[in-house]
């Protein structure tokens, strides 16, 4: 069970966000993005050196203990720049899962996943077999934090070294690695029983990370579209002057702002409560549903207003929109998460309003 980290806030948090922004802005040029984002080891080294990769992990476990809001601020910056590194997977997921299970958190890029594996206890650990599908950055991670879900019996947390798995490459529509990892009777020495509630918390953390990423990418897409429509002239004026353009872009900006507000509120609540409270679960569910819905609208508007040039390989817009299209479906789409909020609303019945004010 995670106890909520208090973490940094205020001016310290703002300074951290500026530092992250500077690192990503200096090192990433969206116009130079290849078709496939390749893991950037140099960027990872800089992030790790600056203490930005394990902000959500307490200092006692090898992290920097900055707290959830700090993790979110840095992740937002990474997402806005399309940083090709498993930051969400390391900070929000693997770092938490391993430290919470009392396992050491290795340095380097990590990833995390849950899956059904055969786990046979052995003298010096466990022998593990099975397939783990769509693991983000699986091929690049030095270790995979795995929540091995048992059909009957308790779940187990494993540290699976990157070298111990066979990789079948896979990708999302942004071509980010989503690999299948195969374990063939691998001896895993670092195992521990999963903390209570780990399965749910892993799901919620994944969803929250994607919320933060989507909100940042959506806001960036809106910014780029504002800039483009002010620069692009047709019919003797910037296309931003046309009301059809203004109305559509204002709508996309509003949806983007709503997704951002929901994500911020969910980070605040989960940061205060941890992930096990009813209101934290609802806040994350709602934020992910809002973000997933906004992602589609923003991507569509950005492409529509950029015209055909935005549809090319050469133009960097694809680095944002393909991520929006990917991330909205990952860690649960809007239908899956809307059902959570919907069931809570139905359970409240005509006392719905009374219940909703408690979801904050």
């Amino acid at each position, binding site marked *: 069970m995670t106890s909520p980290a208090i973490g940094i806030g205020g001016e310290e948090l703002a300074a951290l*966000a500026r530092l992250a*922004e500077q690192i990503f802005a200096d090192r990433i040029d969206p116009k130079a993005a290849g078709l496939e984002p390749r893991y950037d080891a140099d960027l990872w080294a800089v992030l790790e050196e600056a203490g930005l990769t394990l902000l959500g992990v307490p200092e006692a476990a090898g992290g920097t203990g900055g707290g959830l809001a700090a993790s979110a601020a840095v992740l937002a*910056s990474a997402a*806005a720049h399309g940083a090709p590194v498993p930051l969400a997977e390391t900070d929000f997921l693997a770092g938490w899962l391993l430290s919470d299970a009392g396992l050491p958190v290795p340095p380097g890029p990590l990833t995390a996943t849950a899956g059904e594996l055969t786990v046979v206890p052995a003298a010096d650990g466990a022998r593990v077999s099975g397939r783990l599908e769509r693991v983000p950055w699986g091929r690049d991670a030095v270790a995979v934090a795995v929540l091995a879900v048992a059909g009957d019996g308790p779940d187990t947390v494993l540290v699976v070294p990157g070298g111990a798995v066979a990789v079948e490459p896979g990708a999302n529509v942004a071509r980010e690695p989503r690999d299948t990892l195969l374990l063939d009777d691998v001896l895993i020495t670092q195992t521990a029983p999963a903390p209570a509630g780990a399965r749910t918390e892993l799901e919620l953390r994944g969803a929250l990370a994607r919320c933060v990423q989507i909100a*940042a990418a959506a*806001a*960036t897409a*809106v*910014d780029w579209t*504002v800039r483009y*429509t*002010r620069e692009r002239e047709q019919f003797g004026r910037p296309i*931003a*002057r046309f009301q059809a353009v*203004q*109305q559509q*872009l*204002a*709508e996309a*900006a*509003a949806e*983007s*702002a*709503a997704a*951002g*507000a*929901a994500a*911020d*509120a969910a980070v*605040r609540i989960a940061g*205060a409560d941890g992930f096990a409270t009813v209101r934290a679960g*609802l806040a994350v*569910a*709602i934020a992910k*549903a*809002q973000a997933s*819905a906004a992602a589609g609208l923003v991507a569509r508007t950005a492409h529509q207003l950029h015209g055909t040039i935005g549809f090319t390989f050469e133009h960097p817009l694809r680095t944002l929109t393909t991520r929006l299209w990917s991330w909205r479906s990952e860690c649960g789409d*809007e*239908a899956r*998460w*809307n*059902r*959570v*909020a*919907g*069931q*809570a*609303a*139905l359970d*409240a*019945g*005509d*006392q*719905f*309003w*009374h219940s*909703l*004010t408690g*979801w*904050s």
Partner: protein
Amino acid sequence: MTTRLVPPPVALDPALEALRGEVRAFIAAELRASRWRPACDAWLAGWDERFSRELGKRGWLGMTIPAEYGGHGRTTLERYVVIEELVAAGAPVAAHWVADRQAAPALLRHGTHAQRQRYLPRIAAGECYFAIGMSEPGAGSDLAAVRTRADRTDGGWLLTGTKVWTSGAHHAHAFFVLARSAPPDGRDRHVGLSQFIVDLGSPGIHIRPIALLTGEHHFNEVVLDGVFVSDDMVLGEPGSGWAQVTGELAFERSGPERFLTTVPLLAALLGELGRRAASAEHVARIGALAGRLWTLRQLSMSIAASLASGQAQDVPAALVKDLGTRFEGDVIEVTRLLAGVEPDPGAPSGLSRMLADALLHSPGFTLRGGTSEILRGVVARGLGLR
């Protein structure tokens, strides 16, 4: 870094939950005594002077008016909690609504000491009701096109013109009139506008009902035929009317009433559906509404907190009102489809009646207080597109 369009999130002080509990208990007692029925759009249509006075007695009107003027000197967020509970409950707040929500803040910002003394204590008591005299037949979205004239006379002004959509003018005591007191400055029509506090009982005032498509009488046409307004009833400075009016917009547009109008219908739907098994698709559709409502509330609270610290919030307020009023309409559509009932304006009560009432009021949601198109234009300006 990306542009931030809305202020950062806030958490409500847990101490406010005690206040919320008091308001809920009061509402519950009123409902048990069958004083009124929850209704959608009750802040337009629910005129109940007894209810307004009861709120006044409990210190829930004029909450942010300073005590020296009969108010309670409480915070913006305390007031926010009371308002959201009343509107979500579909309570009949129409009588005091304009007075408490718009007239009182305007008097506090631009009024003289005498004007404040004259009106604020009675507004806080729920006994003094106001209407808004802005729109005209030729001036809706284009408010600067108002043609009501204010001509100088001995000791004051004579107002001549016609105002429309003036909700509640047939019941209210006074209204603020936006009129042209001086010519525009070339093409700048914002120059030369003034606001006047006009007693609706004045000689020269002629009020004619304008029925809604339901036949209900809330709107009015108010003809001003040489209505005398003394100098001490000018609100703020002559010529500052435009700045004064637009300065209030963020307060008006960001409030919880801009997305809670149809929450009584949503609650009724959930009460109805809760008893039956719902399909996964329906559960998701409800969840989308609940999630959007939760999000709008987060936005609205953060704007309220930001306004309280004196920051301009025109763009966030416009954005929230646009999303909020769209949500209000979505509630009607989802209710219609999920409940599978026909809207029935003749039903004595229940979901089909509330659905009919909400549906028939729905065109107003996205028109009043700034049409959605205008609001998106405000956001577009905030983005730098115009």
